[in-house]
């Protein structure tokens, strides 16, 4: 139960971070080009990809990790 709550809270935290980073006024701080590419394009897709990667990490690892831990805990019980 606790695990699930922690997972949920982390995702809510990611949501807040994403909402701030992907919206003005932070968004308007990016401009010009980077290596000849539009910096805004790189920034938006970069932050977006990072959010997705973090979500995947939280969701997938959190799920199997806690199950495994529960099992070993059970095993340790005399």
């Amino acid at each position, binding site marked *: 139960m606790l695990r699930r709550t922690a997972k949920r809270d982390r995702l809510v935290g990611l949501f807040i971070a994403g909402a701030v980073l992907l919206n003005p006024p932070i968004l*308007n701080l990016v*401009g010009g080009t980077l290596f*000849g590419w539009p910096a805004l394009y790189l920034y938006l*897709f970069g932050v977006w990809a990072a*959010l997705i990667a973090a979500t995947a990490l939280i969701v997938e690892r959190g799920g199997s990790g806690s199950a495994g831990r529960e099992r070993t805990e059970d095993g340790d019980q005399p």
Partner: protein
Amino acid sequence: MSQQAIIIAAVAYLALLFAVAYLAEHSTGRFSRLTGSSLVYTLSLAVYCSSWTFNGGVGRASLSGLDFLPIYLGPTLAFLLGPVVIRKVLRVSQANRITSIADLIGARFNSGGLAALVTVIAVIGLVPYIALQLKSISIGFAALSSSSEAAHPMMQPLLADGALWAAIVLTVFAMLFGSRSIHPGEHHPGMMVAIALESILKFVCLTAIGLFVGYGLFHGFGDLFSQAMERPEISALFEYAPDRYGYNWIAMTLLAMVSVFCLPRQFQVMVVENVDERHLNRALWLFPLYLLAINLFVLPIAIGGRLLLPVDTDPDNLVLTLPLSTGQPFLALIAFLGGLSASASMVVVETTALSVMVCNDVVMPALLRVKALGLARKSDLTSLLLWVRRAVMIAVMALGYFYMRHDSAQFALVSIGLMSFVAVAQFAPAIVGGLFWRGATKAGAFAGISVGVLVWAYTLLFPSFDRSGALSINFVVDGPLGIALLKPYALFGLTGLDPVTHSTFWSLLANIGAFLGVSLAGRQTPIEQARATLFVDTENLDEVAQIWRRTARVPDLMSLVSRFLGREKAAAAFTGWAHARGLDPATAVQADAETVLFYERLLAGVIGAASARVLVSAIVEEEQLGVDEMMRILDETSRIIEANRQLEDKSRALEMATAELTEANAQLQVLDRMKDDFVATVNHELRTPLASIRAFSEILRDHTDMPDTERNEFLRIVVTESERLTRLINQLLDLSKIEASGAIPARSAVVDLAGVIRESTSAMYQVFATSEVELALRIEADPALVMGDHDRLVQVVINLLGNAAKFSPARAGLATLRLCRSGGNFEISVTDNGPGIRAADREIVFERFRQLGDTMSEKPQGAGLGLAISQRIVAQHGGRIWVEGARGGGAVFRVRLPAAPASSPAEKTLATAP
């Protein structure tokens, strides 16, 4: 490319999709396992990317850069809140067999009228969106069929109108997918697989075009971007500008966040078609990943189009015209099929969802209420249901077509789509409020949705007619009747926002305001309160049965459900339910409340909650709900208070236990210290005599020429110290023996206390004589018979006398030993005229090794075991020993022992006693 070839390719493609759907539903092999997988679930969510993404997104990007992106960032953010919001929607919907978003709102607020309102709004709001898909297909078709400059679709004769053909073909396919048969719970597994396949296809097509643009038309994307940056009108889109994106970006993000579960087709694939809640976990990141991947090449394609194509090219058609104009008709056909996939999946799912909504929440409740039709008595209604749905699909499609004919080419694709987004966003406050706020009322939801939609229509829908020339132009420019404050694009003088943002702000403000205001001002009926509790506390969903205590006969329910679901499916469902509850489906006749609820939900899965309730209530006997039961379920707070109280009790108990533990710990610490003292004392007491014995023995061994007198003196000391050692060891053994034997006397016989005292005093005579203390003996009861152990009692008296001799001042000492009878007891008291014992010390003198006075400065006069032993012996005899202050300043030790029973066989035992 000829029109026939394109049509054949398109129809063949759609037929292939249908074959896939059919196979998925009917085969039993590997194919059928696809239907319930999290991957198919995620890909079916991608129905979100309609032809709007495929064509409109590129068009918008070519005009204004990256501001198409919030439409996809919004769902990403919404899915981050998935475990909070979407999971709740899923659970509530599955528990209540919700079949559409109208059903959800209707069920939450227990109102068929509200469901009908939502349905009507959804149809009105989504017609432009469906029109958009038709328009996109039609312009694609036109662009492809005339390789040169595309003739405007409006100018073509009716039969050559691609949009009409598209509408007809898509309607047929929607009917084939969505209303071929009645499925319990509105699951369409085949449709889901087909949609998933289409999602893969549109992604592959758009990516292929993107790679073609990047590497076929340019030397990689770096080349593309560097060429673009040389064009000032393009590079201006990406330069640093502190106020480039403002409220418009935020509003689009918000709209997209909300739409991802408020759009009927999204609700259909995400909630209604969900077969396993765990699929959502995977979709939480996989769906955003799909959105990212499909949008990766949108900007490069758009910029490539800007660079290579003439300025007057229709931006919404870039994906097609780019390969066409560069001599790649086959790639253009692939692009067309990708766009067709996007449109087809959107139209199929959207019309399916809308047809279910209209059929279940508007048409069927209305038809069932008309008694003259006698529908409630008809034996098989499945075909009626199917035909109602098909008719709705045709009607929705026709509306879309006419809207497109009327309004087409007036707006870019994205603007039309956003109009629909704002419409469905009006459902969000009622849904989110309804699921998380118990105080939300039916009237509040009604007010919020109605007001929001009116504002939407005024600020967005009517002006769109106006722009297309149906109304007088003055309406938008000057406001109605020339009132400038009511201008639809600048309501109350609010300017500086684009029309969509403007409408989003005002409509949602009015919506949320009315929803909260009316809910707060109003009052909930008990049934409303019950519903609110059930929907807000998802855990309690099973208790819904107990709110309505309804009973019915199983055959009645069975025949009712069979009419809508078909006899076989109904029977199979009931058998499964009965087995799960341990009933025999063949003999169960009377249906209890839960069984009635099961049937109602089964029915709700087919015709919606509103109709199901009407139908079921016709055949059940409904009992009025008992007030107490009602209160038990409604008053969730009381249960929380109860839980709270129990928690408080528990913590109080815990506090008490803690206090006890603390006390025990303190005692243990005292005991520990006493043990240390004990060891130290024993050490000291045993070592002192041993040391002197050893010292004197060594002297005697080493000095053989010692005078006899001295030698005798030393030997005397050795003997005395040995005796002292023996005494100490005996006492220790005594004590441990007594403590081990506990409260049970070692030996019990009749003992004469007077005899005991005489024996003891004669034994102690020498001691008193040496310490020059006078001993007075006053035996007032003779014989004084008690039950006990003679030797032990002697030990007690000797102990007391020894103490008196020890503590009385030498030469002037006076000790008194008195034996008397008091009631049923005999009392021995030993009084001395020594320093006495302080009141505070009178308890602890009986503890082991307790020596009064400062042990550091004074040599202890004994091991400190005598009184401890005495106390335990007296206690074994059922008596009591205590100490008082004597009148002259000394101490009085009193021992009280119960007298032996007069008529006991005492005399005989006495005869044999020593």
